[in-house]
């Protein structure tokens, strides 16, 4: 197992270098260091001298990928790419182009993102599985058909509609919770109720249909027929046997997203004023803040690779037949 994990970690290195190069090239195709300086310095009274000063201060006065003026190895190291990239592999994200420490910002903003995403995932999972099992329980009845129709309708509606509608009905008309905002500690609960509720509701349509498919496939297997033949009730068959055996595909979907929950949700956080990481990357792209863009893309890649690794490991926990080698 340990050898497998080490091997996977080593596979990740070239992948991350590739992602880093791609981010760098894509960013600088669109923006030049001069453009970045102009955007940071504002629109008034920006002179060439001020741009030169800004580039020098922020380390953008070097060549992008190759330094002809330097000697030997410095031709590679005395470049914007090397100077801005090498620290990433030690998780030293440095200072953003607007002057803030990126690691400190990420640490501060990851927790509110998690405060919304984790309960949304947990409650959503529970609700989706419960409804899916009920639909399987009542399969081939008008209840299953009705449930499927409702699921398709729910899937067809934009998540933005749920957010705006939820805010309008629950926060504006009924005045039950604040429409937006955030507090630390337990005081956050009243701000999280609505986004979590909406997050869960918005995911019911697709979630229930997905889990229903998994359970139906499992319910048609021989061991289920055997269980029924032994006289177990339908609910006992579903909740004790089918649910347990359907865990592998459920885990595949859940564990892989666990690490990325830190990255937050752009629309949800924006509408509910949750000070999370959801808009961090988009804001950075709009502000041409390359330091943040590269850090967030790198972090996203690392978390995704980590999520895939976790999924593989979790298989061994739920299915003793799986061995990693």
């Amino acid at each position, binding site marked *: 197992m340990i050898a497998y994990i080490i091997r996977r970690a080593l596979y990740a290195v070239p992948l991350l270098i590739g992602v880093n190069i791609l981010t760098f090239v894509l960013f600088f195709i*669109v*923006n*030049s260091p001069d*453009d970045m300086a*102009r*955007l*940071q*310095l*504002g629109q*008034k*009274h*920006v*002179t*060439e*001298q*001020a741009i030169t*000063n800004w580039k020098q*201060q922020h380390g953008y006065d070097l060549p992008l990928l190759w330094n002809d003026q330097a000697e030997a190895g410095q031709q590679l190291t005395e470049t914007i790419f090397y100077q801005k990239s090498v620290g990433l592999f030690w998780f030293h994200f440095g*200072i953003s182009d*607007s*002057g*803030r*420490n990126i690691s*400190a*910002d990420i640490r*501060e*903003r990851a927790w*509110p993102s998690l405060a919304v995403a984790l309960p949304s995932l947990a409650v959503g999972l529970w609700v989706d599985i*419960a409804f899916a*099992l*009920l639909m399987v*329980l*009542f399969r081939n009845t008008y*209840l299953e058909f009705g449930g499927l129709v409702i699921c398709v309708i729910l899937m067809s509606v934009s998540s933005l509609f749920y957010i*705006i509608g939820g*805010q309008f*009905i629950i*926060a504006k008309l*009924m*005045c*039950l*919770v*604040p*429409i*937006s*905002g*955030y*507090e630390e500690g337990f*005081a956050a609960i009243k*701000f999280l109720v609505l986004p979590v509720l909406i997050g869960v509701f918005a995911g019911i349509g697709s979630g229930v249909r997905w889990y229903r498919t998994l359970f139906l496939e499992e319910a048609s297997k021989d061991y289920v027929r055997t269980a029924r033949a032994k006289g177990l*009730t339908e*609910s*006992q068959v579903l*909740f004790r046997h089918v649910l347990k055996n359907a865990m592998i595909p459920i885990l595949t979907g859940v564990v892989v997203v666990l690490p990325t929950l830190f990255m937050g949700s752009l629309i949800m956080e*924006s*509408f509910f*004023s949750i*000070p999370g990481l959801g*808009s961090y990357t988009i*804001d950075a792209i709009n502000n041409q803040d390359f330091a943040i863009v590269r850090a967030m893309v790198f972090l996203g890649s690392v978390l995704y690779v980590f999520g895939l690794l976790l999924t593989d490991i979790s298989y061994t926990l739920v299915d003793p037949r799986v061995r990693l080698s």
Partner: protein
Amino acid sequence: MSSFLSMKMPVVPLLLMLLVSLLACQPSTVLNNPYTETDNQQTVLYQSFSERPKHLDPAMAYSENEYAFIAQIYEPPLQYHYLQRPYQIIPLTTLNLPEVVYRDDKGAALPSDAEPTRIAFTDYIITLQAGIRYQPHPALAKTEQGGYLYHHLDAQAIAPLNTLNDFASTGSRELLAEDYVYQIKRLAHPKNQSPIAEIMKNYIVGFADFAKQAKDLPKTAIKGMSLAGAVAVNEHQYRIRINGKYPQFIYWLAMPFFSAMPWEAEVFYNQPGLSDKNITLDWYPIGTGAYYLAENNPNRRMILQKNPYYHPESYPREGEPEDRANGLLKDAGKTLPFIDKVVFTLEKETIPYWTKFLQGYYDASGIASDNFDQAIQFTGTGGLALSESMQAKGIQLQTAVQTSSFYLGFNMLDPLLGGTSEPARKLRQAIAIAIDQEEFIAIFMNGRGVAAQGVLPPGIFGFAEGQPGINANVYDWQADKAQRKDIAVAKQLMAEAGYGNGIDPKSHEPLIIYFDTTATSVEDKPRMTWYRKQFEKLGIQLVVRATDYNRFQEKMRAGNAQIFGWGWNADYPDPENFFFLLYGPNGKVKYGGENAGNYQNPAFDRLFEQMRNMDNTPERYQIIQQMQAIVRQDAPWVFGLHPKQFSLFHSWFGNLKANLMANNELKYRRIDTAARADKRQQWNRPIIWPLLLVGVLLVLLILPAYLAYRKRTQETLS
């Protein structure tokens, strides 16, 4: 789950009981209050911000959303009178207005009416009030022995710190003249990247040399260095020496750039390790203003708290004639500030922002296009007034024409549209008539704007009202108002220019003109279509070249645009701050200046050079009218509009007067917290019965399933 399904529940009686109890219940507690209860103990103003400020360092900050914070914290020596109009500069931390001494090239003093050509230097001698103190701050905390407590922190001491509030001790000291001099040196230091550094090199004596000397030195090194143009005469007096005569310099002294900065702050914040915690001078201001930044989380909330050491300052005793009738002088002479705490919450979306305002959780609001119809209605006379629902809530509307100008510029280097030739001028004039700004304002701005008649917006010296102020090349004065000329006049001008019916005589095809803009979003499409239609009136085919900001800037710098959209917001209320946008030596392509259209007219330039150094006299007014006439005739711009600011305030918000120049207005404002608490209670009563209804519906949905399941489990094989 199975046990749930097999439960025998007296569902209907239970639900009925719950329904009756909920309907009988009249909840008195407000459930949707986003603020903590402790806020009720003090006078708190609730505001929002939609964009994170980039800088809170007064040497760097230059945008409106940054000034919303730092103008309450930092104090330049001067400020704008809150009520008087036209805008008037008054002392803030000084005893009186600066003493201005003109000097010749040998340094000898000249009389105040000396010819500008004789004036080699101008001295501004500024005398501070004694006893003004800084806010409590750890940078100023001292040990019992008199040394600074936090100026030599090691890594171990810094490790547990996360914000400025984690420092156990704070200190304060008196404001000194040296602090203002220190800030001017900071403006010059290249490492501070002040946006006005390049401008000040032209004015403050020795500024450029100082910048060269400081270039490779650390930020803290400037304390011991001398700058010839900024010198502390004694503890409470300093002198700024500028080149020549530049009367507008006094306005710069009312901007946060020239605020006081204690050297201790720079030493404190430049300790290694603090920047890793985002504890920097750019994020944690230190000032003498009415408020200090008590909480700094630009991703969520910024809180200003009343500065316990704020110097005695009182509400103005006089204003405009109508101010007394409007209740703006009720607090005359009372000590400022009136509000204890200001909470700014980050609110990116307009829907929750607007809802919170209507619920009473924000005290003031702007009006987004989405909410315009809800907030404003057209009156019978074509004016705009608050809608009935807003009036029922007691909301107040305040409007003010902003000191900004938006325009369509012609690139005067363009072979077709530019230059001083008669055909090109007539073509530009025809386009100016064809673009119906009044229609634009009505369609796209809900009437929130005033069509521009010239370079200057209302409120700036030199702006002429009524018939003398109209652009006679585009408007006629009819029935006591400016009426846009008929399109036939524009067509006639086109014919005289050689483009009859918009046909290019060279190609015999419709004339094609390119419009460069950054309007790339879907929302911008209707505007672009509208522009095309305006040009179609003349038979001209308009091609919109929408690009991102970077490419647009590149085109402007290279002079590759034909027509472009641009705007300017006043730095200070002086005509020089607008006319310099058309001054030849400020041309963008040739000199990298702010004259984006590269307009150059020697007669205009001469008048500008004469006007810019003058005081606001009748002679200056006449020169401005001549300049306006030249620009209207040459038409390097299609004068667009001056936006009209619409602001809404709740009934409990007092002392409201739009001041487009001052940014430190929070100290004058007043909140009636009792009235606000009553209204919030009234407007936010929770409604619980729909929850019950949903519960009943759910039960009704589940009940058949439950019955079906029971039936199935109790079935016997037949």
